[in-house]
């Protein structure tokens, strides 16, 4: 049995130093040893304090009535007034929340499977050269901003002179006002988002598909399995963990319905179907100066998003994935 009081080593040290070095002194020594590392890290942590944590100071606006003369600190507290207004009186907020969820849900319903299907198709291409060309071309729209892509869409989708309506009429269909008609605007958002991101989204699935062992296909062919059967029984199960992880991560962002895209494509005619939380904050907050109200909207969104990230991360771990943290 070791008795700490009579531990000769500790006693020896005590004799030399006369007292145990304090916790602070130890820490200070460790920090001093790493002083160059902290010289590097300090400006980075200061940046985080100012630009990542700094805005959190302004969150108090959600519980205050902002008065420009008094500033953020001096404005009077009003408790949950803005939240009560949003949920029980505001004519817009529930519509905006509904729009956000519907658009995001449509993006997931159609936009999530699209790159998986495309990756399975690209994986079936026999010619290596054609495969590479197809990949390069489908990645292309990913690299442009929504300003550029919206400019293109406005031209191509014009009801009078756009080439898409020209083709529709060529096959005998009615011309459609894709960007101005509330009935078609959401589909336009979803399809154009797929156009931009589907190719790029295949990368992670193609990487997973490269990990399927060719022996498994050979064995399946010996057993007389059809190509469709092979896809269902070998390919899909192999990439399923990646699909599950991507899906969980996507659910975590469910309140992001595509701010850049919508802000560049929508117009007062389509506000009723496409005004989402982020565009509302920008339009009503910064253009109509309703700072406190829209800070409350932003806070609502961030709290829900944070909870979703925690929940989905927990789910990812339960599915045997690594999770984010």
């Amino acid at each position: 049995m070791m008795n700490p009081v009579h531990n000769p080593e500790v006693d020896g040290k005590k004799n030399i130093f006369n007292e145990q070095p304090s916790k602070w002194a130890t820490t200070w020594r460790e920090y001093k040893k790493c002083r160059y590392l902290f010289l590097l890290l300090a400006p980075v942590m200061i940046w985080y304090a100012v630009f990542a944590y700094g805005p959190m100071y302004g969150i108090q606006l959600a519980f205050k009535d902002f008065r420009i003369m008094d500033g953020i600190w001096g404005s009077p507290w009003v408790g949950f007034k803005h939240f009560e207004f949003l949920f029980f009186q505001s004519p817009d907020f529930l519509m905006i929340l509904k729009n956000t969820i519907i658009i995001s849900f449509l993006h997931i319903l159609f936009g999530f499977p699209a790159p998986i299907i495309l990756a399975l198709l690209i994986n079936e291409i026999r010619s290596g050269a054609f495969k590479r060309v197809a990949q390069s071309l489908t990645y292309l729209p990913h690299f442009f901003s929504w300003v550029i892509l919206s400019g293109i869409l406005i031209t191509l989708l014009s009801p009078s002179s756009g080439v898409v309506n020209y083709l529709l009429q060529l096959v005998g269909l009615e011309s459609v006002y894709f960007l101005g008609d509330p009935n078609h605007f959401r589909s336009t958002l979803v399809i154009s988002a797929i156009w931009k991101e589907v190719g790029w989204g295949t990368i992670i699935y193609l990487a997973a598909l490269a990990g399927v062992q060719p022996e498994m296909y050979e064995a399946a062919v010996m057993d007389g399995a059809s190509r469709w059967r092979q896809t269902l029984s070998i390919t899909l199960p192999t990439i399923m963990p990646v699909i599950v992880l991507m899906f969980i991560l996507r659910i975590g962002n469910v309140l992001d319905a595509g701010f850049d895209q919508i802000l560049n494509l929508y117009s007062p005619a389509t506000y009723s179907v496409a005004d989402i939380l982020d565009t509302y904050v920008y339009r009503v907050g910064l253009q109509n100066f309703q700072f406190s109200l829209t800070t409350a909207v932003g806070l609502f969104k961030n709290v829900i998003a944070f909870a979703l990230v925690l929940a989905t991360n927990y789910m990812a771990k339960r599915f045997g994935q690594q999770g984010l943290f």
Partner: protein
Amino acid sequence: MKHSRGSNLFQACLITFMIILCIVMLYPFVHMLSISFSTPAEALRLGIHLYPQQVSFFAWEKVLGNQDIWMGFGNTVFRTVVGTVCSILFMSFGAYPLSRKYLPHRNVYTMLIVFTMFFSGGMIPSYFLIKSLGLLDSRLVYIIPGLISTFSMLILRNFFQNIPDELEDSAKIDGANDLRILFQLVLPLSMPVIATLSLWSAVGHWNAWFDAVLYIQDPSKQVLQTFLRRVVITGENLSMFAADVKGSELGYQEPIKAATLMFTALPIIIVYPFLQKYFVKGTMVGSLKG
């Protein structure tokens, strides 16, 4: 290896489908390029535009002769070059200490950083912060608030972590301090990931527009993307091209829009082959990190 008839038929359908998909991806850009070189009448022609049937360079002359677009171009190049260099340097400063396992309280610092990926103040508080720092209407707003991407910095940190400790130890025995180790050993060894992160940052800067809309009023400090936005989306800037329009150029709007758009998109198209190579690699690095 011989393929069955059914499998050949499947290949034929697959290749047809992929060719159509590639056309859908590529055609919009060809269309805009063709319009930008068209006469106004040709630009308004209903139908497919693969090349201009009546060629005119007036739109490009007007766009390239416009002072404001070059001002925007200058500001965009400034933010792309300076912003990317500063970002990479600054993120290395953060990533290197955080990659050292012996750094005291390493997990505390890492958690503080990771938390900001999932929670932020939001748009309005950020606006007030930028305002109170006096960064409104300053070009610094393009560089400083976006200096660090936490995700990129974590990728960099993971890469630094995988550099063998023995290299660092032997450098320390030779008397090198941490700064020398970072600049002369770690950074040169990390060039592949730095190339990828630089491209991410550069494309992000080239495409960024919302910070300029939010924080910049002064027209001389606008970026190319906001200039384009005012031509093709809000239409505010179209009128500046209306001066000295000749009779044959009435209906000038479409070619002007297309030329401005292609001018903004062209640099990305030119570096696209490099982008593709490093981006795809980098996405793998990011996805494999776990």
